[in-house]
């Protein structure tokens, strides 16, 4: 047998593939597997280990020992186990030249033996540690390496659940081993510290020594600290531990027992010393810095009191400063150092930071400032060189984030202590982003400019999103030092705008004199554009916050800054500068006495004006669409915060700001007019730039979505021109992409609800919405419409109308829904007619369904009963027509599948939208009763949402194939829909036609068992209502009753036998309980058959007890809320106590 296995075993290891056949190889593998399963292979294995020369055989022998020991543990004598362990250790010690993988496997076997032994206390870990510490003190590097390997093996075996070997024991065993090991861990830590201490004292390390050193350092970092965290988190579930183990940056929160070992200042000093010694070795430096970062995140009960925490922090900061000062930081250190700082700042409370000695705190802040600026510069260099690994960028991000944390609650710190640092960091950021001579952008270390033009696709994020975190930090620092930063940005921007103006003029001259338009030098222009790009982005982030939520406020720092200077400000000059974007700011007399906040806006307006004038001079080709985007992005962000500033929202308001932008001011009126003009200009010259057009139209929406702003907008003649122009569907607006056109329609409709006298309002609607309706009706009412419907112009007109309808639906708000609904409703019925006419034209059919989707999406939640009914009816007719036209149709063209997929997705969306009415309903209850005969109640309904939705499902289900479910969006939408149906109309499910019912149940099962966890959760949620429905009707042997019985088995297996995550447990538990209530006998059978398979008496008893306890609080189970809650609670205990028992790893 020995020779056999050795012979075969050599095959996969040594013999090249050409010499062995597949069968031979399989046979060899089979030999190994059965060898590992053989009974008591210890003697054989020992013999192999001592005689064989083939590494792979040695490896297999070690594996066989490991598996057999665990398998036959209770049969083995304590002494023979002990001797086996000693044999293995000695074996490794005596053979320093073993292959690494063989050695590791043998040591793993040792670790597994120790681990198994620790459970029944047959092996004392103390003994092992004693042996290991002797090995360490031997002074022999080889032996020390071995000792390190032993410790590493022990730790990885004991600590993490993901790295634990598969030795056929349940998760619970692994868990309890981990708890037992906690005390021993401290020992390992101390041993490791000793080794590190010894090495750090040595002057010169040879190669071998330093490799041992490295191993211990790695051990200290990865094993000890990771394990420490896993233990800290030990009380949490398996799921969480695995999650924490996967992230490197867990905050260190050791228990009190670690106080002595970790609070000893020598520990920290040791790591600083070690790092200083090895920092040139990038691998080792990573470990030592990681250790320090862990120490910097220390918190929790380990600190006896605040003063201990202060002195710990002081020691850490001192160590850090003396480490950083006076060295030139290596590339490999940047991230590690920034991690230490970021951990420190986010872990230690403000009170502890401020309790540091003043000088130390100042030095720390100064050091942080210098470091931030330096990392920022290096990050810029990385960008120029286009490095793959952006270490400085990562480090810079970390430090900027730390600044944000620091200054966000700066009231705790001495007033103004962050101003100078903020100025420095801000300046260096600006410098890195500006071109020479003011800045260093695109300059390599030796001052050479590089200029590359990459191909950028639409998926690449805009800088304003890509660098939003950096920009938010820089903006915040800019606010802290507003005195410096706002005027700086203004003057830099004004100066560049003047240069841009000049450069454009020169280029124009050049172009007029030259026949070749390509000869214009774009380099100078592009440099200016890039400068302006960054200046506008920083200005936007400085002046205002992200306008996503409700009305964003003017940042307090900016307001305060404007107030503090308002006495020196000449308001008239300020307004003059604001109102004359076409003139150079510096040419206006008294331009030094302006409000700086307004002046910065004016600088952006000047940029905008140069751009607009260039387009009028037909220089659009030379302009940067990116700069155009920046401008409208800034203006939108600015307008949301500053335009028509509401004094009530602020304790104190700046006079210049309220005079310039307050309600009922000429300034506000002027700027609205200006913005509108900008929008109109952009939409006509930039139709070919989809992103810019989109940002532009979003600015327009921002102007009209708030009633106060809209009131001013509709007084502008330009607004009316825009509306008329769009209604006429003529160039240039009809060149815009369809999504931009929709949004433009939305804006025009929103504007219609601004305050106007009734004549004006009537006139407005006559010019905006009426033409749409008229043109549409004229077209479709033509006698020969069915004949001309395929003409290109007719199709275009129809498509434009449908697009506009989507835009109108998007404009729905609670106060305009009634008029928009009646307007749209007229169209919806005509659309159904169109559906018939265009049954052959998939793209039109698709768009028609989309109109319904949009209307349902935006309006259903506001509609009262009679109106909802109308919409339901319309949707039902739509679906009927769709179904009629597609039934029995066979398409052979290339787009058939894609078209069908899109139709299905839209129909499901439509059905889900209709169902959402059951959850979200803002409709006025009065309206519900007004339209109804008294007493008719729900029976008076002609169509219910259920009818529409079930009819829709009837259309969809036969078309849903497993292939289609592979589209994630379709899959999610589908399951969302069927879950909704089960939850809302459980009573309709048993009435479904047989085929439909079957496929619905099959879908649920499929979703529960083989889709994403999100889908699985949805399906579980659908089960309870179905089971409750069965319980209600009391009918047995119905198909639904049978189906729920099947689901009981599925959920039972899922909860008891499979690994699952916590989110699902709740959903599964709810479903489980209702199913158990319904099928009590079957549940008992399941429990008994599970118990019957248990051969281990202890396990059997524990399982039986657990099952008893599970239903104890709810016997007999009934659909009572209180009982259900009690059951869910016991289920949680059940899962945590037995879950691991049956889940074997």
């Amino acid at each position: 047998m020995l020779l056999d296995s050795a012979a075969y075993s050599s095959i996969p290891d040594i013999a090249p593939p050409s010499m062995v056949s597949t069968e031979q190889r399989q046979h060899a593998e089979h030999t190994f597997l059965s060898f590992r399963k053989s009974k008591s292979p210890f003697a054989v294995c020992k013999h192999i280990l001592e005689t064989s020369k083939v590494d792979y055989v040695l490896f297999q022998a070690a594996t066989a020992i490991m598996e057999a020991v665990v398998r036959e543990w209770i049969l083995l004598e304590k002494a023979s186990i002990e001797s086996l362990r000693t044999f293995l250790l000695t074996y490794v010690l005596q053979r320093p030249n073993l292959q690494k993988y063989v050695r590791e496997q043998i040591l793993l076997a040792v670790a597994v033996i120790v681990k198994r032994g620790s459970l029944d206390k047959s092996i004392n870990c103390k003994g092992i540690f004693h042996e290991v510490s002797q090995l360490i003190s031997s002074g022999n590097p080889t032996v020390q390496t071995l000792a390190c390997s032993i410790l590493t093996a022990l730790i990885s075996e004991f600590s993490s659940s993901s790295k634990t070997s598969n030795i056929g024991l349940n998760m619970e065993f692994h868990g309890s081993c981990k708890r037992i090991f906690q005390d021993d861990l401290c020992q390992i830590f101390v041993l490791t510290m000793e080794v590190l201490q010894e090495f750090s004292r040595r002057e010169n390390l040879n190669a071998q020594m330093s490799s041992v050193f490295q191993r211990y350092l790695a051990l200290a970092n990865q094993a000890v600290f990771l394990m420490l965290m896993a233990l800290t988190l030990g009380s949490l579930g398996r799921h969480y531990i695995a999650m924490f183990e996967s992230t490197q940056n867990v905050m260190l929160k050791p228990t009190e027992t670690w106080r002595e070992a970790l609070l000893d200042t020598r520990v920290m000093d040791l790591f600083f010393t070690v790092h200083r010694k090895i920092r040139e070795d990038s691998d080792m430096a990573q470990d030592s810095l990681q250790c320090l970062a862990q120490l910097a995140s220390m918190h929790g009960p380990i600190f006896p009191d605040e003063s201990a925490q202060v002195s710990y922090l002081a020691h850490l900061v001192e160590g850090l400063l003396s480490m950083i000062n006076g060295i030139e930081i290596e590339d490999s250190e940047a991230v590690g150092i920034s991690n230490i700082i970021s951990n420190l700042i986010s872990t230690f409370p403000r009170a502890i930071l401020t309790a540091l000695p003043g000088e130390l705190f100042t030095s720390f802040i100064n050091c942080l400032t210098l470091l931030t600026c330096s990392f920022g510069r290096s990050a810029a260099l990385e960008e120029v060189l286009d490095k793959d690994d952006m270490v400085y960028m990562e480090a810079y991000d970390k430090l900027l984030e730390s600044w944000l944390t620091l200054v966000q609650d700066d009231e705790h710190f001495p007033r103004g202590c962050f101003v100078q640092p903020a100025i420095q960091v801000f300046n260096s950021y600006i410098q890195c982003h500006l071109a020479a001579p003011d800045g260093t952008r695109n300059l390599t270390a030796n001052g050479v400019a590089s200029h590359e033009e990459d191909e950028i696709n639409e998926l690449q994020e805009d800088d304003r999103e890509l660098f939003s975190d950096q920009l938010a930090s820089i903006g915040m620092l800019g606010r802290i030092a507003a005195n410096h930063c706002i005027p700086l940005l203004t003057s830099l921007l004004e100066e560049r705008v003047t240069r841009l103006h000049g450069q454009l003029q020169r280029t124009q001259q050049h172009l007029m004199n030259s026949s070749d338009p390509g000869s214009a030098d774009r380099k100078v222009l592009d440099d200016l554009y890039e400068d302006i790009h960054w200046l506008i982005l920083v200005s936007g982030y400085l002046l205002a916050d992200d306008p996503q939520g409700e009305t964003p406020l003017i940042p307090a720092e900016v307001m305060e800054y404007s107030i503090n200077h308002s006495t020196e400000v000449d308001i008239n000059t300020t307004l003059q500068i604001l109102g004359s974007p076409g003139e150079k700011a510096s040419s206006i007399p008294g331009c030094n006495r302006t409000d700086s906040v307004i002046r910065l806006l004016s600088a952006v307006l000047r940029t905008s004006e140069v751009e607009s004038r260039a387009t009028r001079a037909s220089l659009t080709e030379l302009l940067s669409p990116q700069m155009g985007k920046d401008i409208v992005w800034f203006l939108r962000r600015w307008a949301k915060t500053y335009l028509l500033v509401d004094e009530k929202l602020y304790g104190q308001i700046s006079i210049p700001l309220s005079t310039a932008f307050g309600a009922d001011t000429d300034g506000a009126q002027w700027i609205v007019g200006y913005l509108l003009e900008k929008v109109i200009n952009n939409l006509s010259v930039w139709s070919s730039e989809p992103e810019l057009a989109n940002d532009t139209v979003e600015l327009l929406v921002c102007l009209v979505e708030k009633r106060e702003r809209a009131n001013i907008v509709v007084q502008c003649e330009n607004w009316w021109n825009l509306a008329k122009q769009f209604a006429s569907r003529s160039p240039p607006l009809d060149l815009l992409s369809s999504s931009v056109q929709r949004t433009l329609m939305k804006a025009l409709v929103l504007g219609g609800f601004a305050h106007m006298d009734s004549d004006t309002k009537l006139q407005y609607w006559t010019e905006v919405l009426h033409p749409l309706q008229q043109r549409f009706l004229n077209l479709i009412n033509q006698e020969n419409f069915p004949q001309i419907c395929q003409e290109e112009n007719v199709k275009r007109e129809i498509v434009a109308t449908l697009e506009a309808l989507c835009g109108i639906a998007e404009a729905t708000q609670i106060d305009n829904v009634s008029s928009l609904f009646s307007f749209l409703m007229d169209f919806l019925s005509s659309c159904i007619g169109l559906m018939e006419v265009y049954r052959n034209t998939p793209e039109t059919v698709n768009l028609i369904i989309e109109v319904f989707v949009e209307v349902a999406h935006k309006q259903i939640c506001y509609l009262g009963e009679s109106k909802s009914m109308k919409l339901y009816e319309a949707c039902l007719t739509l679906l009927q027509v769709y179904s009629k036209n597609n039934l029995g149709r066979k398409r052979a063209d290339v787009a058939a599948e894609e078209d069908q997929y899109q139709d299905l997705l839209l129909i499901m969306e439509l059905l889900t939208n209709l169902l959402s009415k059951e959850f979200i309903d803002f409709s006025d209850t009065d309206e519900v009763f007004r339209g109804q005969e008294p007493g008719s109640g729900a029976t008076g309904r002609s169509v219910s949402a259920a009818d529409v939705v079930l009819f829709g499902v009837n259309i969809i289900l036969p078309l849903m194939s497993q292939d289609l479910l592979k589209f994630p969006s379709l899959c999610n939408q589908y399951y969302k829909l069927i879950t909704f149906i089960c939850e809302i109309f459980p009573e309709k499910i048993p009435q479904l036609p047989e085929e439909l019912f079957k496929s619905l149940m099959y879908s649920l099962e499929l979703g529960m068992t083989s889709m994403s966890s999100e889908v699985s959760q949805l399906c579980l949620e659908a089960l309870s209502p179905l089971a409750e429905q069965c319980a209600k009707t009391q009918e047995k042997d119905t198909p639904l009753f049978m189906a729920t019985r099947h689901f009981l088995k599925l959920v039972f297996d899922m909860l008891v036998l499979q690994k699952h995550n916590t989110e699902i447990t709740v959903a599964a538990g709810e479903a489980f309980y209702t199913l158990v209530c319904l099928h009590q006998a079957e549940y008992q059978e399941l429990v008994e058959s599970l118990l019957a398979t248990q051969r281990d008496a202890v396990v059997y008893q524990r399982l039986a007890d657990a099952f008893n306890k599970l239903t104890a609080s709810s016997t007999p189970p009934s659909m009572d809320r209180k009982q259900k809650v009690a059951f869910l609670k016991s289920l949680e205990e059940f899962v945590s106590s037995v879950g691991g028992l049956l889940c074997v790893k």
Partner: protein
Amino acid sequence: MMNQIESDLVFLARIKMHTVKVPLIHRTMADPELDFTTGESGASATIPMQCSALRKNGYVVLKGRPCKIVEMSTSKTGKHGHAKVNMVGIDIFTNKKYEDMCPSTHNMDVPHIKRNEFQLLNINDGFMSLMADNGDVREDLRVPDSELGKEIEQRFAAQEDILVSVLSAMGEECAVAIKQMTGK
């Protein structure tokens, strides 16, 4: 203004109606001798459109072929460059894939696409006899040489009443779908 557009539409509609009545000029690949292609047929077969106004699922002429746009994206050269449109289209008759890229300010040709449904009356020597809604009968279209064509023949042989959808663009025509006739 409104009236003018309407009358334009009516006018255009009339012109088209007129061309429909004339025996179709087409170029079915299976039928070379019936190729009457003249210069003028291409002239009204397409209209120009700015790239940015094209849409996915819409149609465009790529390499002289009518295509359905299945992918559309934009890109630019350098951060301050102007948008270019990248398109992938599939020839609606041959299923061949074409790609093209052009500045988004440029115009592309958009083919006029028509889809008409006819009732299948007869199959004679590989040609279908098709009746339009208005009773006009045409017998100039071949049964397509494809799976669909086989099905048309089978269903016809089984005496089923079926409707045939005919796709036409740029002087080319092809049957692309069939549907069971429902009692109207």
